[in-house]
């Protein structure tokens, strides 16, 4: 009963995010992100109806759609890259390189897995594959975030929400899937419970931060002459005080 409630609550939150996007006309501004949310909503709805009416087919459907959701999760990362570095072409080039490198790494890894795994079992091999793909996503997202923090790029509330929500979800997934593979049985059981609720983190964050449109702060490259003059005067006064401090032997703190 609680499981069904959680399921419906997730679907409700996803639908709320999409409805707000349509109502506030921000769907087109974050196309990749909302495409991802739409796909996730569709996946959840189909899973629910298959679970309800075609229970034997659920397991296969679950794993197929799980890989689909991992793959389209790159849409969120692409959106973060596109929005955060839109005005900064140099760092954006570095970000694209990270994304392409990860894409080829994933392709190589999946090809390697397909060639080497002989006894495929959905829960074990599927979980292992998902964990490794999420780990790659974690590296890609961390790389882009390092670029953002290194170049001190200002980001808006919407983008912050995408970063916090999806980042926390990936971190939680990597940890949960690792615990399920390597920890003791009681801890694994607990971890499974946590995993089924972990998708609520991004959903709650996205409902709050994407409730309305908050554009990224404007890039100030050409300041008005008046404000420049004020800054110039302020800085010159500061430097004069410094020099005076050095001469009098009392450097300004």
């Amino acid at each position, binding site marked *: 009963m609680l499981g069904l409630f959680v399921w419906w609550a997730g679907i409700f939150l996803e639908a709320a995010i999409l409805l707000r996007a349509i109502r506030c006309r921000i769907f087109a501004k974050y196309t990749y992100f909302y495409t991802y949310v739409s796909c996730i909503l569709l996946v959840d709805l189909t899973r629910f109806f298959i679970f309800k009416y075609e229970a034997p087919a659920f397991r296969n459907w679950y794993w197929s759609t799980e890989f689909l959701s991992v793959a389209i999760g790159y849409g969120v990362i692409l959106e973060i890259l596109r929005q955060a570095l839109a*005005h*900064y*072409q*140099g*760092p954006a*080039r*570095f970000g694209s390189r990270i994304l392409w490198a990860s894409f080829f790494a994933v392709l190589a890894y999946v090809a390697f897995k397909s060639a080497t795994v002989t006894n495929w079992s959905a829960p074990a091999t599927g979980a292992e594959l998902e*964990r490794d793909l999420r*780990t790659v996503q*974690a*590296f890609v*997202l*961390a790389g882009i*975030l*390092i670029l*953002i*923090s*290194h*170049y*001190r*790029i*200002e*980001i808006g509330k919407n983008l*912050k929400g995408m*970063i*916090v929500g999806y*980042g*926390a979800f*990936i*971190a*939680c997934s*990597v*940890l949960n*899937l*690792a*615990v399920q*593979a*390597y*920890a003791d049985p009681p801890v694994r059981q607990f971890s499974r419970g946590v995993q089924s609720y972990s998708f609520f983190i991004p959903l709650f964050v996205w409902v709050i931060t994407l409730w309305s449109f908050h554009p990224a*702060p404007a890039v*100030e*490259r*050409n*300041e008005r002459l008046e*404000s*420049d*003059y004020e*800054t*110039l005067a*302020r*800085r*010159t006064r500061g*430097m*004069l005080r410094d*020099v005076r401090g050095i001469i009098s032997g009392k*450097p300004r703190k």
Partner: protein
Amino acid sequence: MTALILYSFIAAGLLIAIFLALRARPVRPEGSADALLGARYALRTLQLNLLPPELVGRFFAREDLEYVASATTQEVQQQFLQDRKRLVLAWIEQVRLQVISLQEFYFGQSRHFVQLSLRTELALAWECAALRMVCRALYLLVFLRGPYGAPDVVGKIVSTAGRVCSISEQSLAFLAPAQDRGVVRNSARGDAAG
């Protein structure tokens, strides 16, 4: 178990990256007088006032200590060591602050260039990070062992800071002070007085 720890580090690393990206202060607007003056001041202060070898050598010169030790009382020696320690700590802090200022200006400017060189960016980021770490370590060493406790680290800090300056100078040629040190010093004083 090792794998579990590894994955935990990856998850923690991602959370730290999120935290760092969200708390990053924006840099000063590009091209503003504030940013330009700050960077010019930092470069000039580092190159001319903080890093000349003779100045740094003087800070850490043992001859001063030996002279004071041979010619004065124990109390004067103690006072000399305390004063020298304060001076050296202030110098290290100044170097660190000017390096941060230069770093902020450089990356605030470079992010707008399309043809960024990955090698240069990584080199400069590494040099700045290393220099700041060395400054912190040196500060700690001097704080704990006194001004004459870490002569080797001083050489390293000066050479690394010099490299940071020369890389920054190539990119920010217009900020570099004039070659003639005397002229620059005089003009700086003249500006200040005027």
